[in-house]
């Protein structure tokens, strides 16, 4: 299925396959990695960042596109919203219907709280449902939470908040057990032993998976449980501004029906932001593996009420996004493909790196191979390197691909590429927001009372780079605990008079800082239409 132009390089990959399978490439030293990242990782491209002029992170640098929406106008005029007759009144308001929001909802409901979810698309439309590779937990004999901690702490450049990371790794086995008890089907041996593999940067095989539909399997199970518990899900409704009470506690949100644009008011005793990531902001013009609604809404909502961001300048570019065919450009090729043995190969048929370096290192290495070294494969619209999937069948035996990564086989199969027989072309794609709102281990923001955050909108759990399988884990661990804690605090909370004064205050700051902008945020959805604005 590859064009004539690609055939010559493809033949080199095929000829070298037997030898490349046996070849054990060295891992990079700490110094080599550092130099590589500084030169080639997008996070270090200074001219792609702007300095925040207002808000709790004033003076810090964040991606240009994020800076613009953090310092944009509100979508509402604060005086035009009537806060005295809320349309919804609840204990716990959860903004976002992905994995973190759903896990939080289930636990808050279990704790006896009145809980509701608002989500701007459908429940389940999230990065969770697209996670393919797996979820980490140190539950094997040769492993421990301490080893998991070291892997994640080092992989995140020693920047994670230790108290968050230790919670992540220590609660991981229990998270897997909780999911199993809900009926999530993990890949297991006949005797019940979990089938686990490596991810980039892991030192033990602790990646649990449900084929390469790991996130989909988790998400659909959580969604089913939310429905079973008859938790209200207000879908196609976005939160466009948080509401505080007169004491400055988070006390609800202004909602907007995505179809009719009707504004609604939800009052709550506690609020959980579980709005996910930011891939659809297309930082630095990168394509993304993220779902349609990943536009950093939670960061905007939080920032406007004064919640602090942590590591918002660090993004994860997944090393293996689809580079060809163009119809699925930027879509995720799970890291599990490399866990199962496929290596990264340049246009000359050479293995140019160890396939299981951490994601930031692998992405930077591919960018270097394609640019400075000129060893990228040119397609009609982009550059890429080969990911030699047929190696998997040679190593694991015929049928391994169909059994372990059926989604990948199907995705390429639709474009006439049989990944069992032909390698695929990949290039980094914008994948994950490493940073986000700063929280304490109970899930509450460090400086806004009763405002909780869970999932990708949190910053600090992973430091400056996240390992594969630690985000499905964090949405469960921190989603659950946010639900439990938000329910507990709601019990002793009395909501005072509702206010949107912070919106006016923020508007004043914009004007005083001399920021000239027409933008309104949160962005909610990207605009891919071809029409010109009238």
């Amino acid at each position: 299925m590859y064009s004539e132009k690609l055939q010559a390089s493809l033949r080199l990959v095929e000829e070298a396959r037997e030898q490349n399978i046996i070849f054990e490439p060295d891992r990079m030293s700490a110094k080599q990695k550092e130099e590589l990242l500084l030169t080639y990782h997008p996070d270090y491209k200074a001219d792609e960042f702007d300095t925040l002029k207002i808000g709790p992170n004033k003076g810090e640098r964040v991606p240009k596109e994020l800076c613009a929406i953090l310092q944009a106008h509100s979508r509402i005029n604060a005086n035009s919203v009537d806060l005295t007759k809320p349309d919804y009144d609840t204990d716990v308001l959860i903004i976002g219907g992905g994995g973190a929001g759903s896990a939080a909802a289930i636990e808050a409901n279990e704790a006896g709280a009145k809980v509701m979810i608002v989500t701007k698309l459908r429940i389940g439309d999230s990065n969770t449902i697209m996670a393919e590779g797996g979820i980490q937990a140190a539950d094997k004999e040769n492993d421990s939470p301490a080893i998991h901690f070291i892997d994640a702490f080092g992989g995140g450049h020693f920047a994670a908040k230790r108290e968050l990371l230790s919670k992540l790794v220590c609660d991981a086995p229990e998270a897997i057990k909780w999911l199993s008890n809900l009926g999530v089907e993990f890949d297991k041996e006949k005797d019940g032993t979990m089938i686990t593999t490596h991810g980039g940067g892991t030192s033990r095989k602790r990646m649990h998976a449900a084929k390469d539909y790991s996130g989909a399997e988790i998400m659909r199970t959580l969604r089913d449980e939310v429905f079973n518990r008859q938790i209200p899900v207000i879908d196609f409704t976005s939160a466009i501004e948080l509401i505080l009470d007169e004491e400055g506690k988070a006390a609800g949100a202004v909602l907007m029906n995505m179809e009719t644009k009707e504004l609604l008011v939800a009052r709550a005793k506690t609020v959980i932001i579980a709005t996910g990531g930011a891939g659809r902001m297309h930082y630095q013009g990168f394509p993304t593996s993220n779902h349609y609604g990943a536009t950093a809404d939670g960061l905007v909502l939080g920032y406007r009420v004064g919640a602090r961001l942590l590591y918002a300048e660090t993004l994860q570019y997944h090393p293996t996004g689809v580079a060809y065919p163009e119809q699925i450009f930027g879509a995720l090729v799970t890291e599990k493909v490399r866990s199962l043995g496929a290596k990264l190969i340049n246009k000359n048929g050479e293995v140019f790196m160890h396939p299981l370096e951490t994601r930031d290192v692998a992405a930077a290495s591919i960018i270097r191979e394609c640019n400075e070294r000129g060893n990228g494969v040119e397609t009609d619209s982009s550059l890429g390197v080969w990911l030699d999937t047929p190696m998997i069948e040679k190593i694991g035996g015929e049928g391994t691909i169909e059994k372990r990564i059926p989604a990948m086989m199907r995705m390429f199969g639709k474009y006439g590429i049989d990944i069992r027989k032909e390698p695929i072309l990949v290039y980094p794609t914008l994948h994950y927001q490493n940073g986000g709102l700063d929280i304490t281990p109970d899930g509450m923001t460090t400086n806004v009372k009763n405002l909780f955050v869970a999932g990708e909108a949190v910053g600090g759990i992973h430091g400056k780079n996240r390992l594969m399988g630690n985000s499905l884990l964090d949405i469960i661990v921190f989603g659950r605990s946010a639900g439990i804690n938000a329910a507990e605090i709601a019990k002793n909370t009395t909501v005072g008079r509702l206010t949107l004064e912070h919106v006016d205050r923020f508007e004043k700051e914009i004007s005083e800082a001399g920021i000239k902008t027409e933008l309104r945020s949160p962005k909610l959805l990207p605009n891919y239409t071809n029409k010109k604005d009238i």
Partner: protein
Amino acid sequence: MENNMVNIYLFGKKYEVPENLTIMSAMEYAGYQLVRGCGCRNGFCGACATIYRIMGKRELKTCLACQTKVEDNMYIATLPFFPLVKQAYDIEKIPTTEAVMMQLYPEIYACIGCNACTKSCTQGLNVMQYIAYAQRGEFDKCAEESFDCVMCGVCSARCPAGISHPQVAMLARRINGKYLAPGSEHLNKRVKEIENGDFKELIEALMEKPIEELKELYNTREIEK
């Protein structure tokens, strides 16, 4: 590279779009700002179920709009929502035999074997087969056969018996995952050890260590083959 253009008909209205686009991006090219019928854009969420027919042909085809290229003279209608039946149940209290299906989804026994579900599946699954497994209470087989389901609902839209296949399969998978699949001893053991506080000291030590020591630990750690 210049793209050739093709004609497509969105809900009957004609648009000219580049032939290399997916149905979803063709809609956007035509000017639609999608809210419904668009989710993950990668074939995992089932938001963009779509029905189409090529002009002059009899066959009605189904697909996911984000995973399918446009063709010339394609008549397209999206199916962004389909009213599936989803029964609420308590996963802790349900029977794990076919009795549960008779109780919650008795319509599966009205299947007339037309196989329209299988023919319409956007994931190419053998839907009628997994319903047959569900009828017989063979939930492990139903789970395996239905595993790649994205719950787009097209099968149910084509079913003359009113079966909500994706929800039936969802129930079977949860029963299988929770009750029928073998338990993991090593997992239960580890959860107990953590509850016991067996790793407490190790973790607390890590919380206190200077960064330089942690760097040393990381850079020299042994990596399992």
